[in-house]
């Protein structure tokens, strides 16, 4: 206890004027804890925590334009529906969100005006956040806002932004709207606006903690964090789910759930055979989890659906089978049935060939000649 109050005094000493956070119900201590947690989330040395704190306390509030296209608003929901406000949400409060259809008070011309004002006054300095995929079919007619197609809006807004953060798989790679046969010609922001500076935060929905960490990185260092080959920040998508999974020991041990609700399922064994796509998917779900770190699909007893990989709806299905169906064969035919059939057919064919050969008379061979 005594130790704790000492710590507190120390914190106070270095706190300076922290009115902003305290006004919003965040103690200095919680704020610094948040900054340290962020440095850990971003895989930065803890010594950088003060730098993060400094960046978050500065007066410059970068403008944000939050665009929503073909989406279910799930990413906005993920951000807004948290049970109690977290420091992360308040960080997003630090941003001046000038345009966000779901939450802004303004509507119609007023709203569009706010957007244009930001783009004009803060050109190259605002952050664009995009939710939902961009339909490119039929000249963009599938999604129009204020008389403009999503594609036009994205070109305009993302093209002029300091950086674009795509939240969710739809904005990153087209997601479910882009699933075969992709009737609207949906695609992610980077494909639709190749010139824009984009960082992808796929997931269904985006993990709010990763969004906050990305924003914090941007505010602290003035640039986006390092990305992998699919445009995703390495701090959040740099490891495979399977390799960080809490059920991994059961995979290595050889203990698998064979049917929903069986003994192994109740004991929390590995979901590999139930079609879990953890071995295919890169995301920090096992460590960050969702809903204030309470849970994620595998902890709740359901396999990973691979939602943060491009085209997951086409490539990760069937969701409850480990391997995809073999193209051209029936749904119930697994790769192994086909393989066994192939082996049996080969054996049968050569068996017959062998019988015929054995009874055939008059075959002759000259013997190999040396050239």
């Amino acid at each position: 206890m005594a130790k704790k109050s000492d710590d507190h005094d120390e914190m106070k000493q270095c706190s300076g004027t922290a009115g902003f956070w305290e006004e919003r119900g965040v103690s200095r201590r919680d704020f610094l804890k948040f900054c340290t947690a962020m440095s850990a989330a971003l895989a930065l040395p803890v010594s950088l925590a003060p730098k993060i704190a400094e960046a978050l306390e500065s007066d410059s509030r970068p403008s944000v334009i939050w665009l929503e296209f073909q989406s279910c608003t799930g990413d906005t929901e993920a951000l807004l529906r948290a049970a109690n406000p977290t420091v992360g949400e308040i960080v997003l409060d630090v941003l001046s969100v000038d345009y966000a259809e779901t939450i802004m008070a303004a509507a119609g011309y007023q709203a569009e005006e706010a957007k244009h004002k930001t783009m004009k006054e803060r050109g190259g300095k605002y952050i664009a956040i995009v939710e939902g995929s961009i339909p490119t079919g039929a000249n963009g007619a599938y999604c129009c806002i204020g008389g403009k197609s999503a594609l036009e809006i994205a070109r305009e807004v993302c093209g002029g932004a300091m950086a674009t953060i795509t939240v969710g798989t739809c904005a990153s790679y087209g997601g479910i709207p882009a699933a075969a046969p992709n009737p609207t010609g949906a695609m992610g922001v980077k494909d639709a606006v190749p010139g824009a500076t984009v960082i992808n935060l796929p997931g269904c929905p985006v993990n709010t903690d990763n969004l906050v960490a990305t924003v914090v990185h941007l505010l602290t260092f003035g640039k986006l964090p390092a990305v992998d080959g699919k445009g995703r920040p390495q701090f959040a998508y740099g490891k495979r789910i399977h390799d960080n999974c809490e059920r991994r020991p059961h995979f290595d041990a050889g203990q698998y759930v064979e049917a929903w609700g069986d003994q192994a399922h109740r004991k929390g064994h590995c979901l590999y055979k139930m079609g879990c796509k953890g071995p295919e998917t890169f995301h920090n779900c096992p460590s960050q989890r969702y809903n204030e770190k309470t849970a994620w699909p595998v902890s709740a007893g359901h396999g990973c659906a691979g939602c943060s990989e491009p085209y997951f709806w086409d490539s990760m299905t069937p969701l409850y089978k480990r391997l995809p169906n073999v193209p051209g064969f029936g749904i119930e035919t697994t790769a192994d049935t086909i393989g066994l059939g192939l082996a049996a057919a080969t054996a049968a064919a050569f068996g017959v060939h062998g019988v015929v050969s054995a009874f055939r008379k008059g075959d002759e061979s000259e013997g190999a000649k040396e050239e």
Partner: protein
Amino acid sequence: MADHKACLYEKYVWEVPVRVTHWVNMLSIVVLAVTGIIIGSPRTLGLSGSDYVMGWVRFVHFTAAYAFAVSVAARIWWMFRGNRYARWREFFPVISSGGRARLWETFKYYTFLNKKAPHEVGHNAVAASAYSLVFLLYIVMALTGFSLYAEHRPGSLMHVVMTPLYTLFSNQGMRLTHHMVMWLLIGFVINHIYSIWLMDIKERGGVVSSIFSGYKAVQRKE
């Protein structure tokens, strides 16, 4: 026939690298297929959470995988260093008109259209063409296998080297390919062992023992 036999002699055809890589490949493929099938559809063999059954199966798969990859690489290198029966040209009879003729004759023999069994110093033309496909399958297995393997450490050298494969394949597509090609190889092996048996009987060149000893019975040039 008898007069041919009079001037037969033992010719050294398969050099050491050809034979060694053949058997290393065979052994590793058997191990890889057995462990691979277990990886593909494991049974619950672990009794407690601190067992390591799948861990060991995968360890054996990856160890055999390295042996296999080194052996295949060595054999491919030997395609540019070895004798004419080991050279890369041997595997593509289609590129020369003589080769195409041999291919056709051998094909006719296999389909009972003529009775003259091929007898060649090196691989017969049909077998050689099949082996070129098998080497392609070897390469597909090694590439998809090491791409899957490297995913435990994104950003590592192996992962970076495999970058083109991650664009070419979806992750699931890579797994399915790795899985299906195993069945193609199993199909080949059934065919291969049968054909070796058939040819050993029909051409009487001692082909089965040749892959152990390196020597085949060949007629001396007159």
